[in-house]
């Protein structure tokens, strides 16, 4: 997020696109509701009639995967009505003139044709956002999990830049990070191309800096580009990856195209899974290492607004389960590398030394309340919103983005468009929430949301068991007739292993971010005939 959670209630316009906020980020959803109560106008762009729609001034029900066309036509109107921020464009951005041209064909009429949103609504949304004083844009996987996810994100950036709506309090662009510490895992360098702190592994000087810190006796770090998670399963399949070490993840259920994932993991010579439960992924392991959960260890999590917060040990882990840090340190020792830390805070101390944005944060300072990075010195108050004084790389550039359809659209054979996602009560692959009786009572089984008209046409009823198939596989699942999905589209939450949505999904990747296209794939639906 470029803004912070407490700023949400002071927006005057909130534009939520591709985020079912009240279910995936319930407390941020509450803040949005509070803002609406205080007079903010809420624009929701989502193919599903999500709960947030009840609180909205405008709902743009665009077809899944048409976000670029929607955003471009909104920008077309903003440009035409001259609601752009010329001063901001001149002083802080570049490439506007040529970008401007690229919008010309995205008239509201064209927008309506591609997205299905009435042109009047597109114009209204443009006027609302374009005239706003403190608007915030919010998005999650509904924007990124597409084969053109990066282009979607560029489009959002273009919209904020052309209206100068970035780098002020209560004004900005806010991707909401899904899991509790997905921000922190990225910050800490658990991505192939960055060392901790977004320091690129292939920029000269940076590798040397980390070599000095980690290998002071003169050995060197790898200069090869690493693989992303999605690429790793491909590499396991073709045999170039032989072993994997998986800590606290369950790719069998969370990754697209489950059969592929299973086959890839099965092909490995050696698989280590370190987790708190015997997950579906752990069942494929050669070694399973029992880990401690959040309540059994000390450390920090970083939330979606970059706030580093203190996690505290409350109970002892069960049996012989151990903290992940202990396991990693012991393994390193046996492989000939000493990781010397007296207490877990020493690890954060080391990260602080290597990443200036974190230098001002230690356990003492965050004992009561967390601090938001960048926080470069011990007397720095943290940074609630980003880009106040300018952009790190000088001027921000506009990126021309053309609409291109999703990779796998419905056709005669697979006539429905499937999106996957989360629901309120379960979490991710359910390895935690599905162990809780009360939660299982309100959310006992997998379901597929289907529009009443489609259900009528197929002659299926609420609660019926149906077969859903894609080119990759099929699952049996219960029907939930609901006004939420658009006609012709269906939705399955991916938490349930009995009917794993990811048997159906496709591995088409966004070429830049390597995000799989989990929000769009083609499926067919067949009622199961009772014998």
């Amino acid at each position, binding site marked *: 997020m470029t803004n912070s959670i407490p700023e949400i209630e002071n927006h005057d316009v909130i534009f939520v696109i591709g985020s079912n906020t009240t279910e995936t980020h319930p407390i941020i959803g509450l803040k949005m509701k509070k803002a609406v109560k205080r007079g903010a106008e809420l624009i929701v762009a989502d193919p599903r009639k999500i709960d947030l729609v009840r609180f909205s001034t405008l709902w743009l029900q665009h077809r899944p995967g048409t976000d670029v066309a929607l955003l471009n036509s909104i920008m077309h109107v903003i440009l035409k009505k001259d609601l752009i921020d010329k001063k901001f464009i001149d002083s802080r951005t570049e490439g506007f003139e040529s970008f401007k041209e690229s919008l010309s064909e995205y008239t509201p009429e064209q927008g309506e044709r591609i997205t299905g949103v009435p042109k009047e609504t597109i114009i209204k949304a443009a006027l609302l956002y374009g005239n706003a004083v403190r608007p915030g844009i919010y998005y999650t996987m509904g924007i990124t999990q597409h084969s053109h996810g990066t282009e979607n994100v560029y489009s959002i950036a273009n919209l904020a830049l052309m209206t100068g709506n970035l780098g002020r309090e209560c004004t900005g662009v806010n991707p909401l990070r899904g899991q509790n510490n997905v921000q922190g895992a990225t910050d800490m360098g658990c991505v*192939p191309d960055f060392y901790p702190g977004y320091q690129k592994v292939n920029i000269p000087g940076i590798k040397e800096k980390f070599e000095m810190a980690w290998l002071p006796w003169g050995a060197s770090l790898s200069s090869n580009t690493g693989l992303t998670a999605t690429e790793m399963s491909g590499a396991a399949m073709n045999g170039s990856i032989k072993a994997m070490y998986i800590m606290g993840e369950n790719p069998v259920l969370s990754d697209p195209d489950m059969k592929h994932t299973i086959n890839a993991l099965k092909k490995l010579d050696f698989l280590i899974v370190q987790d708190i439960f015997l997950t579906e992924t752990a069942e494929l392991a050669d070694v399973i290492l029992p880990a401690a959960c959040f309540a059994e260890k000390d450390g920090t999590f970083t939330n979606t607004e970059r706030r580093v917060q203190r996690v505290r040990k409350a109970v002892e882990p069960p049996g012989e389960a151990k903290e992940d840090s202990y396991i990693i340190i012991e*393994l390193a020792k046996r492989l000939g590398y000493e990781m010397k830390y007296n207490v877990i805070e020493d690890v954060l101390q080391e990260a602080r030394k290597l990443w200036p944005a974190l230098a001002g944060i230690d356990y003492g300072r965050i004992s009561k309340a967390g601090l938001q990075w960048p926080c470069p010195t011990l007397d720095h108050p943290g940074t609630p919103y980003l880009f106040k004084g300018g952009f790190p790389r000088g001027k921000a550039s506009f990126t021309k983005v053309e609409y291109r359809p999703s990779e796998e659209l419905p056709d005669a054979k697979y006539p429905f468009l499937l999106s996957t996602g989360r629901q309120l009560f379960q979490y991710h692959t359910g390895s935690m929430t599905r162990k809780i009786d009360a939660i299982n009572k309100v959310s006992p089984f997998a379901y597929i949301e289907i529009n009443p008209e489609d259900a009528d046409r197929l002659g299926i009823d609420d609660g019926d068991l149906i077969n859903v198939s894609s080119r990759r596989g099929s699952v049996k699942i219960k029907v939930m007739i609901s006004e939420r999905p658009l006609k012709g589209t269906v939705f399955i939450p991916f938490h349930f292993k009995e009917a794993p949505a990811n048997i159906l999904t496709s591995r088409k990747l966004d070429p830049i971010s390597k995000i799989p296209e989990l929000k769009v794939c083609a499926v067919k639906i067949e009622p199961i005939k009772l014998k």
Partner: protein
Amino acid sequence: MVTLKIDGRKVTVRKLSTILDAARKLDIPIPTLCHHPELSPYGGCRLCLVEIEGIAKPAASCTTFAKEGMIVNTSSPYLEKLRRTNLELILSDHPNECMLCERSGDCKLQELAYFYGLRENRFKGEIRVYSKKDNNPFVTRDMEKCILCGQCVRICDEIQGVGAIDFAYRGLNTRVSPPFEKDLNCEFCGQCVAVCPTGALTGKMWAHKGRQNFKEVETICPYCGCGCNITLYVRRNEIIRISSNEETINEGWLCAKGRFGYGFVNSPERLTKPLIRIAPKENSIFNVKQTNPPLPPFTKVGRGGINNAALFKEVTWEEAFQYVSKRLKEIKENYGPDAIGGLASARCTNEENYLFQKFMRVVIGTNNVDHCARY
């Protein structure tokens, strides 16, 4: 801004502040049962009465706006008598059940009765009987203990935006209820439970887990990226309840997962010992087909631990570490470090993730490290 005088002390507050807000600013205690700073004023319990100079009758401080030059008195024998009477009326149909009540020791009503020394009741009257039991899995609704303060109704409507409950019926029959007295069926955020001043609303999973001798541990919710601050109540190495206080970024609000989703910690299905696969694996590493048991359907995991002893055997940590390091060494020697990949976790701490990527980059020697940011 307006300036007024409370109990002889001057205070300046913003326009549209109530007398109660002003008194709280001066840290003057006024008893309340239906007031909540984030909710619309209600004025139902009449405990927050104060005297205002020039106004004949005492006024509810939670609904009366502070005015310039006002002179307010928050305590006098007369006010205390009124408050005491009002409290007695509230208690007149309250079951005397503190002994068994989950909120005993943490109940505003009990605390006020204690301060006012109330045990016997002059108005002892008909006790409301609600035989209806609500079978929802999260919230125990013990409506006999409800004092109709309306905080749950307001929070559900004004903060949560759900409106799952409302007042029903009139007079002595008034009660808070979901539509048609059905079982509660809502988002189960537990916001109503958090604000209820009595034992009328409690967490179902709190029952008989203990009301004393627990420690409170401040930490962060393990689920989504909001990063809500939570307080764990721990008794005998078990989390028995979760709450959140109002001074947090989440203002004390949580969702069903954060508030009620802690049972997994103590699940009998937790892994407790290192396991090594014993099911035979093909010798040839190039054999595609038969490596692991077929999936899905997945191996059954039963209560009380895993019952797939046919697949794995329990080993000591020492054995596990030796086995893992031996295999990793071999693979690194035979195929190079880039034949090994690591997936870290968006659910682990910063420190653990830092160590994990350091392990992959330094100890293994590869940049093949990622986590599930993309799903």
